[in-house]
């Protein structure tokens, strides 16, 4: 196997600012995305800590109502548009997806780089709102409140519009890449579930994001020219705005959670060294969920004044989507059954995900019940629910994925002991922060409240303490990951014994062109029983599996047919 000069990889084959800023390499773009979304996460996280600090007691604790209202709004906008939506697809999707497909790059590398810059421009425009009037009222921008405040809303809508473009271009790129650039032998049935879920996510991104585009555009025009589509004072209909908004924003929930499903599937398979139970179901249900996700937006609007007919239809379809999601959870648990489970830190996050996401899922069912939602809508129950899904789902999975692919990305191992401590801190901190909020919600504490009744104080206090534990865990992760870059142990080719192409067919870190020769795939992503030879010597797999199944692992290149399967 002739790689380009030994020791050269995508990180060091070219140096200098320009080699990064103008790179077309999907791996470098993924890394740059990682830096960008991490900054967004840091900013959003600091705001979250401030918000929790303010809620430590009733009345003013550290800031006044206007500062508080803007803090939670900016927290939401940053976390949703600038962090969660791009987190897994744009970072791990970019880095891993082409390699898992056996491709040398995504289908449109220039577009890929463009979407990174578009994302950055969008984020900057959003931040401009801070110095150009205020933005409050949450990330939902409900009219007519949003058009009644200062000009900050113009910047936020413009920024969201621009970031939406980035999201669309990424999704479009991935769909084409999955369709057109799979390696020979990599049939749909052999695709890693991570690919399936990113594929499903991309469908949602392409179909839903344009609608938030037109929605924020109309909101922009409503603010700038009073066009009277949403503003009731001019004869518009504010409920129509909510339809427009949720037509995107509910599917956006699936943009956030579907990639997490993919990461968890990969982790479950690899660390159980076992076929993911119900592979076909898990794969196809991702796509089914992506489509069904478009038919349930009205469950955010049961008390908004929409017709009862639509509430009923939306409620019913909400359950239809709950079932496949539930079965997926069971499939992941079942993957461990008669498997060979290894509790490395990435797997800890997968295990944690099963816990937190299940709570998020069950409380989602609770909120889908028409009569109960009347009580729980816009209370802390909803806040807790979506944090269990978004953070307990997406962020936990993203952390799992980060720990899983970190060695491949940088060729360095982090400190496994610290990683386990951090995982524990995150788990405890997360649950202490958000579980009390369920009870606050059922007790009737409305969300987006700066001040509250004294009866809610003890639970708020608990929640705030939890946020400190959570923050400690996250800072610990930041610390040892950065430390690993400086003095981490060198990572092997395939430390987890995974079977997807990024582990079996690339060096660590990968070569600039991923593969020198196009790999040929002869087994499914989780067919560990067909790859026994890789594990014969025990320990971590340290050799590339270039021969396909049956062949002995060898450094000798096996001739690879060139003709691709499109």
């Amino acid at each position, binding site marked *: 196997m002739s790689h380009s000069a030994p020791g050269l990889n995508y990180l060091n084959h070219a140096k200098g600012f320009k080699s990064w800023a103008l790179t077309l390499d999907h791996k470098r773009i993924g890394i740059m995305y990682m830096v960008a979304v991490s900054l967004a996460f840091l900013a959003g996280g600091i705001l979250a800590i401030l918000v929790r600090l303010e809620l430590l007691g009733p009345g003013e604790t550290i800031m006044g109502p206007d500062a508080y209202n803007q803090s939670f709004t900016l927290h939401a906008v940053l976390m949703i548009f600038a962090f969660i939506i791009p987190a897994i697809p744009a970072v791990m999707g970019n880095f891993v997806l082409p390699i898992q497909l056996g491709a040398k790059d995504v289908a449109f590398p220039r577009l890929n780089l463009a979407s990174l810059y578009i994302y950055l421009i969008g984020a900057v425009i959003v931040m401009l709102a801070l110095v150009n009037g205020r933005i409050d009222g949450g990330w939902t921008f409900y009219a007519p409140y949003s058009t009644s405040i200062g000009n900050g809303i113009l910047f936020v809508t413009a920024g969201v519009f621009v970031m939406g473009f980035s999201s669309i271009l990424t999704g479009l790129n991935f769909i084409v890449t999955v369709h057109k650039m799979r390696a020979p032998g990599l049939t749909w049935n052999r695709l890693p579930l991570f690919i399936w879920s990113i594929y499903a996510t991309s469908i949602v991104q392409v179909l839903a994001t344009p609608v938030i585009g037109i929605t924020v555009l109309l909101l922009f025009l409503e603010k700038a020219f009073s066009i009277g589509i949403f503003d009731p004072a001019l004869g518009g209909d504010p409920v129509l705005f909510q339809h427009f908004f949720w037509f995107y924003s509910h599917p956006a929930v699936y943009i956030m959670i579907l990639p997490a499903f993919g990461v968890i599937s990969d982790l479950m398979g690899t660390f159980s*060294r076992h076929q993911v139970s119900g592979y076909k179901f898990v794969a196809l249900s991702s796509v089914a969920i992506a489509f069904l996700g478009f038919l349930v937006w009205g469950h955010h609007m049961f008390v908004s004044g929409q017709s009862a007919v639509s509430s009923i239809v939306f409620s019913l379809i909400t359950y239809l989507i709950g079932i496949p999601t539930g079965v997926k959870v069971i499939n992941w648990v079942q993957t461990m059954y008669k498997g060979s489970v290894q509790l490395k830190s990435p797997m800890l996050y997968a295990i944690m995900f099963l816990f937190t996401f299940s709570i998020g899922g069950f409380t989602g069912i609770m909120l889908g019940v*028409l009569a109960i939602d009347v009580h729980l809508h816009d*209370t802390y129950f909803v806040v807790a629910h979506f944090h269990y899904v978004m953070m307990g789902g997406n962020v936990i999975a993203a952390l799992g994925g980060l720990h899983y692919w970190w060695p491949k990305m940088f060729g360095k191992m982090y400190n496994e002991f610290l990683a386990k401590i951090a995982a524990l801190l995150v788990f405890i901190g997360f649950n202490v922060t958000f579980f009390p909020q369920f009870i606050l919600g059922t007790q009737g504490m409305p969300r987006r409240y700066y001040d509250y009744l004294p009866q809610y104080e003890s639970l708020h206090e608990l929640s705030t303490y939890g946020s400190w534990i959570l923050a400690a865990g996250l800072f610990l992760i930041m610390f040892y990951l950065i430390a690993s870059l400086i003095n981490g142990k060198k990572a092997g080719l395939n430390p987890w014994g995974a079977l997807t192409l990024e582990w079996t067919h690339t060096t660590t870190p990968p070569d600039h062109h991923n593969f020198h020769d196009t790999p040929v795939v002869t087994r499914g992503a989780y067919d560990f029983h067909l790859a026994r030879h890789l594990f014969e010597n025990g320990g971590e797999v340290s050799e590339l599996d270039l021969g396909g199944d049956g062949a002995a692992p060898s450094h000798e290149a096996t001739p690879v047919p060139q003709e691709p399967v499109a």
Partner: protein
Amino acid sequence: MGDNGSVWLPDPGTALAGEVDTLFWFVFWTSTIMFAMVIAAKLYFMAKYKRNSESDVPEPVEESKALEAVWIVVPTILVLIVFTWGFDVFVKLNNAPPDAYEINVRAMQWSWEFSYEEGATAYTELYVPVGRPVKLNMTSSDVLHSFYVPAFRVKHDIIPNRYTAVWFQAEEAGEYMIHCTEYCGTQHSGMNAKVVAVSEEDFAAWITEQSQDLPPAILGEQVFAQCQACHSIDGSSGIGPTMAGLYNTERALEDGSTVIADDDYLLESILNPMAKIAQGYPPVMPAGFSALSQKQLDGLIAYIKTLE
């Protein structure tokens, strides 16, 4: 976690709230049991199938179609039960009995106005009779609000330019919090009020007392609580002109003309604020005040006359 749920749910204040709670507990316990099963299985598998040897490669498991069917069919049945049940209670929650006692509610940034057909108007306390269904016809003067009484498990958004409604029948005398649950600006979390449920007799007495002819200026002072965010009474300038010493003076208008601030002008300015815009002030006064009753309007004007 008893049936009245001191930890999870506040005491229900209406019979319908009790029905909601029953449904809540059904979903709660079913979910908890299923969740416990999933977590138990997870922990068991984690321990039982722990990797013993690094070269261990387990055989794939034959997937049981029957088991898969169970996972799909059982939850489907459960959610269909929950859906039907939830739908049933939802319709009850949203359909007020035809004989309900109706109260008009106007929400605004950041206060409430409850007006009774007998003529009484309240701002911080919504008096209702115990044991009689009460229907609130609600609308908003500015942005979206939402009317929420946790103890009654009722909530509905309040929309400008449209009436929405909630109804409830308080079972016991007492006070119940009202919150606004749709974000409406700086003082969103301060937009609270109370339902005060009293016996029929007390309610009758209250409403008679409140609907009594207060001296107009006193009534006007009460009503003026809504105006104070923009109009001062001490001569300082706000979003709108001050009311102090306004009566019967000559006012300059935006269009260059002038007008005497007499009764007719004040009335017109309240009912149709865009007709004559005072010079130097933005035309932002909401039209919502046209909903005030004749008596309230007379009261307001009487009160403004008293402001020197």
